[in-house]
Every structure is written in structure tokens, then in C-alpha cells.
């Protein structure tokens, strides 16, 4: 039975429970004897803890105890870097509870354990916390002056500089016929998940085992960290992944609470649950994106890009935490985007500030670098008198140049190359789809009180991070199959996608894939998780290997049972037969299981183009999207229905970052956007007109599915496309947007600046 579930738009399995209110998220769990944790957080951005008195809180009704750094006599554990674990970052890593100093508003200082959340919150008021304020560092420029230091011992607020290098950019700039330098910046966003974070921990004193519910994204990594911090063998800790209400890179990294709640459970010998509220979430979940680029481009007069160089300054917040360096690495590594740039010299500076620490947010460093370069390209094309479409056409990498090498990044020794693709083809298709040639004449025209403009932006999306992934198949009692995955679900439809891949590989009807289990640490020997658009490619390829191994195990069992050679065994999905016609049902092999792995040495690079048609109201500063098209080549689409959902959903997140979202601090490092009335997200009325076209022209040469990671392309180019469209709409004012988000007041400034 040859299936073609892969490539077919399929409705999702998980919808049946989500739509009926039957999902099970971590706050839906309840066990006997539960204590509720609430966390005292610093209200001061930078200061020394003068005193911490919890005696009053301990006497409050319903309070079981209060945990502070003093309850950790062996030292307060430090959260290690998961990715780019460089020795340079060590001094900047975060203790799970602040002691001595606080470095951002929202930093955990103490944990109250009470019989209810409300009683715990009451008790927070009774904790005496005195902080002697120190001068706050509210931005990268202040950090660079090194007058006030977050970490006195290091003598600097700069934790690292990434160097992206290719060719000899300085030599090219010396003789370049044309150069232009620009300063551009992006706002501070975060991967706001609709479900706030949560952890429930149960300590089983009699067996010395710990169960942690609420795990997400990278449970195996986090178990390794927790085991070391809490002094247990990894095997004594079970991380349980429940339904997860969104990830976007931010949820599931190891945060202070991921130690504090298991610690509290062991400390009290009671099960403990902590659920973040939204205000906490805004100041405690990883921030992202805030970067300022001072970059320069060199070109020929005919519009060939020769070189890029410059400095990018990243506002890292107060600590280097788990994956916090990824955005700053990517922003220099991928500044050249999908373009042929033979010489690159870009330094990316990591500045510590008194803000919430940063981590990855969907398209980390890629959204920022795309905005920087794509804005620059529009300005350069205008300078050189070359149509901006023609300029891009001349510089996009072609399939003939693949695999195309990109800038080498130190000190992580990150060397990479693009894998396959004719980037110009997606570009032309996108222009065609939006009707660029007919609409281009509208640019800068005032129609019914609004200026119209078109913008275009080309992107590359990295996916399929290594080193490997694991999947396991098992035969059930009724002869159906169960799939177990080392990767995780953050809401992207893993159960459906892996059922499709398994049914095709096993050559069985899809309803014979009874369950797809994922995430929890007891399903497979070793798992890696859901980040860098890797689940489908890595987990799917591992599942193909598991299928081969299961088939081999079935053949071996069948050969033994039927007394023939394994090569004579045939498997049809329901029964096992020998060549002489004898057979037995597969269900008789119930419990037979096989694991498979996929090792990866090459990232995948899907690619494409965004084009936007906007109308800008110069009086209100409002930007309306008249039409918006994404064309993305993904190599191979496993489920086109869910893939389109990924692209459109990501576009709206990106447009939120381009128009609305910014985590605002004042000069004292005080956090000003602590509610969803302050941190504005896109709503259903904001961006109605969005389309995407998925193509499969250049499958990945590096994995058996041919698939490329594709969950982030929708966000990467949104800032560039939107800002370019606004620039061309407001061309009569000479507007050149150089910062995001383009809030109404920023648009008004762009219009007013020329007039005034």
C-alpha cells in the first residue's frame, strides 16, 4: 500500500480535544496536597539587596514557607548556557534567585508557598525587601560607557563580540565605487505565548524521584540542567510535556522557576505548582530583538553588491541565559540574507543592560538583519538609479552557486553554507502574485486620503539544527502502531504531521497510527526538541530510520516464528508472511519496538520573498495592509494546511513587531509595559489581507524527506517588507523608516519631518 499522506492537506488530530475544551495544559493539573508558589520579584532594575525579611510572610494565613537564597546552603544554582556555551559568558549567567544584587525588574528574589495562589500573593506584601539602588543601564549605549557595571568583577558590560567574516571587506571598501552607511534599529519584542508558563513538581521521597510537569521545547536538555543543579541522577527525573499553549522560541527554555519549583517540592515534600500571571510573563519570559545596526554597504555603480561591514549592538538584558546569544550571532551571520555578498566584516556586540534577559524569538536575529539589509538595499537602489526590483534580481543567489558559503562566525567557529534553491524564482513568483508591475505606479500616490506603497523583502530561513533526533515505533495489542518522539509539541501539529510520515513509511492506513506521543523524557532514549524549525525535518527523518529498524525487527521475529530466512518475510501492515504463504497477524508481535535516529550535519535553508501593498494615513499614522503575499520554497511540504498556518501566523507576529510591539523601559530601567493594554499585539482587525504560496522546487539534499524547516520564514521578512512599503508610500515626504516598530507616532514623525 503506497500512501501519499505526506503532501496532502490533512485536518489535525489534536483539534478534536482542543476544540472541545479537552486539552490538558499544565494549569489544568491538580493533585492531592498541592502547594501553590508565588514569586517575589525585584521592582528595582539595579541595586544591592540590603535586607530580606520573610518572617512576616511566614506568619500569614495559609503560608507554608518562604524560600530564599539562604535555603540553598550549597550555593544558589546558576543557569548554564544551552547553546554557544562559551567560557566568556560564564560570569554573566543567572543565579536562580537574586542574592547580593538585583539586575532587572522581575528578577526572582523569594518564593512563597501557600495553600492557594491568593494567600501566597497576600503574603508577598508582608515580605520586607530593601534594595539600595545603583545607577541603571537602560540601553546599549549607556552599557558601552562602562560607568555603572552589572557585573563588577568583569570590568565591562560587554559580554562578547561575535565576528562575522568572509573575504576581505576592508580592502573592498578602500576602492569601492559606491558606499552607503546607515544606522537602523529594531524594537524589543518577545515570543508572547497565550498560555503563560507553568511548572508542577512532585517529589517522591520514598523512591527519590522527581516528576516535573509543564516541560516544553527541550525537556531532555532541561532535565540535564535540573539534575545537576538539584543533585539527582537524570534517570530519577521525569519531565512531562502537557499540552503547550505556544512556544515561538521563548517557552520551554530553562528559567529560574524551572529549578525553583522542583526545589520547593523537595524542600517541602509536597507537590508544588506555579503558574505565571501575564504581568510576570511580560517581565520574566525571554525578551528579544532589540538591536541597533551601524552598517555600511559597498556596490558597483551597476548595482552589484561587493561587501558589507559594520557593527551591530544587541541589548542583551541582565544575564546571559540558555539560548540568549543566538539572536546576536544570527544577526551578523545572516546579515547578507539570500544575496551574493563576497566580502563581509560585521561585529555583533552583546551589551548587558538592566532589562529582562533575552532569548530566541521565532526568526532570532533574522528578523532584525532582514530589516537592516532590506531597508539599506532600497536606499542604495535609489542612489544608484536602479529599480529596487532589478537591484535584488542582480544579487540573489542562484542554484548554480549552491551550496553557497556564508560568513564564518567567531568565536563559535560557526561555518555554514546554504543548501539549495533558486532564490530569484521565488522572488519573481511573489512579484507576479501581488501584481507588482501593475501596482508599482501607485507608489507615493495619494488616493482617498491615504498614500499607497509597495515593499518587497527577500529572506533565507535556517532550520533543522543538529546534532540529532530520536523517534520510536511500537506495535500495539491490536496491531496498530504508536509513535514516540524525542521532539516536542508547542502547538504546531506534531501529532498529525508524524502520523502522516509514519503512515507513509509503514505503508498503512493513517488510522492505524493510533497515538503519537511526544516530548516527555520517558518515551525515547534521548531527545532534542522543538527549536530552529527542526521537528519535522529531524524527527521525521528519525522516524523513517525507526521504520527501517522496526521492519528489520519484524522480519527477524517473523523468520524465527515461521522458520525461514528474514529476507523471505513480507510485511503488509496487518500481517507477517513468509514466501510460502504462511502468515500470522502483526498484533501477535505486540510490544515489539524499534528506535531510530537522524544525525544532521547540514542545516536546511528554505527561502522566499514577502511583498506588501500598504496604504498609509498621514494624519492618523495608521498603516493598512491592502495586500500581502509570501512565497516560500520549503523543499517538501508534509502538511500544506498546517504549513500555511505556520506562514500566515508568523507573518502576523512579524507585522506586530513591525507596527505595534515594543517592551518599553524608562531611563531608570523601570518596566513600563506590564499589561496587554501596554504591549500591543495584533488583533483580528489589524491585518486581514494576507496570502501565501508554498513551493517545493528545491528539496533539501541533506535529509531523506527533502523537507526544510519552514516555521519562521513568515516572520523574518515582515519588518523589511512593511517598512519598505511605508517608505515608498511616503516617498513624497522623503520618508526613510530606520526604526521599528512603525507606530502611528513614528509614521507621523516620518511625514512631519520633511514638512516641518
Amino acid at each position: 500500500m503506497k500512501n501519499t499522506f505526506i503532501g496532502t492537506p490533512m485536518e489535525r488530530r489534536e483539534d478534536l480535544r482542543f476544540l472541545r475544551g479537552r486539552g490538558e495544559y499544565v494549569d489544568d493539573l491538580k493533585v492531592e496536597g498541592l502547594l501553590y508558589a508565588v514569586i517575589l520579584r525585584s521592582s528595582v532594575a539595579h541595586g544591592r539587596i540590603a535586607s530580606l525579611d520573610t518572617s512576616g510572610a511566614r506568619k500569614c494565613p495559609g503560608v507554608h514557607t518562604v524560600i530564599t537564597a539562604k535555603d540553598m546552603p550549597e550555593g544558589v544554582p546558576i543557569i548554564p548556557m544551552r547553546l554557544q556555551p562559551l567560557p566568556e559568558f560564564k560570569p554573566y549567567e543567572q543565579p536562580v534567585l537574586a542574592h547580593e544584587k538585583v539586575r532587572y525588574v522581575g528578577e526572582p528574589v523569594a518564593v512563597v508557598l501557600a495553600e492557594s495562589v491568593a494567600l501566597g500573593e497576600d503574603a508577598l506584601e508582608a515580605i520586607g525587601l530593601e534594595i539600595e539602588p545603583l545607577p541603571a543601564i537602560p540601553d546599549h549605549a549607556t552599557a558601552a560607557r562602562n560607568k555603572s557595571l552589572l557585573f563588577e568583577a568583569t570590568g565591562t558590560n560587554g559580554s562578547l563580540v561575535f565576528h562575522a567574516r568572509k573575504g576581505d571587506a576592508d580592502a573592498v571598501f578602500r576602492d569601492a565605487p559606491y558606499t552607503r552607511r546607515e544606522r537602523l534599529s529594531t524594537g524589543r519584542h518577545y515570543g508572547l505565548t497565550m498560555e503563560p508558563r507553568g511548572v508542577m513538581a512532585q517529589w517522591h521521597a520514598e523512591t527519590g524521584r522527581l516528576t516535573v510537569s509543564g516541560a516544553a521545547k527541550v525537556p531532555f536538555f532541561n532535565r540535564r540542567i535540573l539534575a545537576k543543579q538539584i543533585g539527582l541522577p537524570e534517570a530519577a527525573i521525569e519531565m512531562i510535556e502537557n499540552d503547550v499553549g505556544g512556544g515561538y522560541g521563548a517557552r520551554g527554555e530553562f528559567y529560574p522557576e524551572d529549578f525553583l519549583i522542583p526545589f520547593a517540592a523537595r524542600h517541602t515534600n509536597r507537590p508544588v505548582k506555579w503558574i505565571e500571571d501575564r504581568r510576570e510573563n511580560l517581565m520574566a519570559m525571554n525578551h528579544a530583538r532589540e538591536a541597533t545596526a551601524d552598517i555600511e554597504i559597498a556596490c558597483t555603480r551597476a548595482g552589484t553588491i561587493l561587501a558589507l561591514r559594520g557593527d551591530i549592538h544587541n541589548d542583551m538584558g541582565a544575564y546571559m541565559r540558555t539560548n540568549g546569544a543566538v539572536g546576536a550571532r544570527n544577526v551578523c551571520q545572516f546579515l547578507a540574507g539570500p544575496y551574493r555578498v563576497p566580502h563581509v566584516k560585521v561585529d555583533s556586540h552583546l551589551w548587558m543592560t538592566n532589562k529582562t534577559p533575552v532569548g530566541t524569538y521565532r526568526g532570532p536575529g533574522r528578523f532584525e538583519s532582514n530589516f537592516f539589509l532590506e531597508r539599506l538595499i532600497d536606499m542604495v537602489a535609489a542612489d544608484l538609479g536602479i529599480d529596487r526590483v532589478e537591484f535584488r534580481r542582480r544579487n540573489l543567489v542562484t542554484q548554480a552557486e549552491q551550496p553557497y558559503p556564508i560568513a564564518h562566525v567567531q568565536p563559535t567557529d560557526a561555518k555554514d553554507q546554504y543548501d539549495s534553491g533558486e532564490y530569484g524564482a521565488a522572488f519573481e513568483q511573489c512579484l507576479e502574485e501581488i501584481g507588482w508591475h501593475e501596482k508599482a505606479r501607485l507608489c507615493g500616490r495619494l488616493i482617498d486620503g491615504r498614500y499607497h506603497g509597495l515593499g518587497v523583502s527577500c529572506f533565507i530561513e535556517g532550520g533543522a539544527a543538529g546534532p540529532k533526533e530520536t523517534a520510536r515505533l511500537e506495535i500495539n495489542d491490536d496491531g496498530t502502531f504508536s509513535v514516540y518522539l524525542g521532539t516536542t509539541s508547542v502547538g504546531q501539529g506534531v501529532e498529525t504531521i508524524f502520523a502522516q510520515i509514519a503512515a507513509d513509511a509503514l505503508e498503512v492506513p493513517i488510522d492505524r497510527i493510533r497515538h503519537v506521543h511526544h516530548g516527555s523524557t520517558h518515551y525515547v532514549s534521548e531527545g532534542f526538541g522543538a527549536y530552529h524549525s527542526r521537528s519535522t525535518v529531524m524527527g521525521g527523518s528519525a522516524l523513517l530510520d525507526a521504520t527501517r529498524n522496526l521492519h528489520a525487527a519484524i522480519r527477524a521475529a517473523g523468520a524465527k516464528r515461521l522458520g525461514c530466512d528474514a529476507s523471505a518475510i513480507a510485511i503488509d501492515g496487518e500481517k507477517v508472511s513468509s514466501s510460502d504463504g504462511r502468515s500470522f497477524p502483526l498484533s501477535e508481535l505486540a510490544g515489539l519496538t524499534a528506535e531510530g535516529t537522524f544525525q544532521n550535519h547540514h542545516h536546511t535553508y528554505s527561502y522566499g520573498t514577502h511583498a506588501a501593498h500598504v496604504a498609509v494615513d498621514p494624519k492618523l499614522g495608521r498603516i493598512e495592509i491592502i495586500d500581502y503575499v509570501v512565497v516560500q520554497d520549503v523543499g517538501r511540504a508534509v502538511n500544506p494546511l498546517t504549513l500555511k498556518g505556520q506562514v500566515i501566523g508568523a507573518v502576523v507576529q512579524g507585522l506586530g513587531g513591525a507596527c505595534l510591539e515594543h517592551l518599553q523601559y524608562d531611563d531608570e530601567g523601570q518596566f513600563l509595559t506590564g499589561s496587554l493594554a501596554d504591549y500591543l499585539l495584533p488583533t483580528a482587525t489589524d491585518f486581514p489581507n494576507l496570502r501565501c504560496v508554498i513551493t517545493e522546487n528545491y528539496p533539501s539534499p541533506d535529509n531523506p524527506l527533502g523537507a526544510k524547516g519552514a516555521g519562521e520564514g513568515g516572520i523574518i521578512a515582515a519588518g523589511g517588507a512593511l517598512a519598505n512599503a511605508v517608505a515608498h508610500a511616503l516617498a513624497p515626504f522623503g520618508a526613510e523608516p530606520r526604526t521599528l516598530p512603525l507606530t502611528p507616532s513614528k509614521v507621523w514623525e516620518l511625514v512631519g519631518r520633511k514638512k516641518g
Partner: protein
Amino acid sequence: MKTRFEVNGREVEVVVEPRLTFADCLRHHLRLTGTHVGCEHGVCGACTVLVDGKAVRSCLMLAVQADGSKVVTVEGLSNDEGLTPLQASFRKHHALQCGFCTPGMITTAHALLSEEPDCDADRVREVLSGNLCRCTGYVSIVEAVLDARAAYKSGTR
């Protein structure tokens, strides 16, 4: 305080603190965990339930205020046999990903379509603009609600 109301056709009586929100009452006292809490300040709409037929944010309401009312949650808009036409339309259009905002979307859309089965796309967007979704970008949710209008018009919902 003793509070009595009807939820999903069942009479219930709970003893609650006056400060308990209705969302927490539904979730933690009545274990109706389909209603989700996303912000606790009335912006995200994940906790939307129907109180006497109107879509209401249960995080902005105290449990004691429910006294004497008829309440329907996402569980009450569901059945064991399969999906309702509105739910099936959400599934068909891939109008959900992580599922966290979904119960609030279903209750809000149900209230809208029950009152205005002829609503147009602009009206759907206007009403749904009080419910945040971070996964879908809303396009598919609007399509799903529009596609479910027929069932409400014909009374087959």
C-alpha cells in the same frame, strides 16, 4: 459565600471567597478546565464564557456575580459524538494551532453567530478583535466563522 447557578445545563452550588474570579471558580472549583486564563485583565478573551447568552470574560467577573445565571462554557458547546459544525469548521480551516485561545474563540463566535448568522467578514473581525490569538494570524479563524454561518442559519448547529 454560597453561590448557585446553572452551568452547561446543570445546577451547581459553590461556596467561594468573594474575591474569587469566575474563571478560577469554573476551572478550579468546578474543574471545567476548558475555559482558559490568559491575562486576568480582560484583554485576551481566552476565558470567554456565555452568561445568559452573552459572551463574557470570566476573569473580569467574580464568581459570586454568577449567582442565579445560566452559564455555558466550551464544554457545554461540545458533545461526545463528534465536532459541532462550528468546531468542524475551525478544524477544516486550521483555525487553531496551540489551542489555548480556542475555547474563547468558540464561545465568542457561537454568541455572534447565534445573534447574527448573517454577519459579514468585517463584523466577524470586529467581534473577534477582543480575543487574542498568537498562532494563526486570525485569517483562518475568520474563514472558519464565516463558513459556519450556514449551520446557524439553517438551525443545524
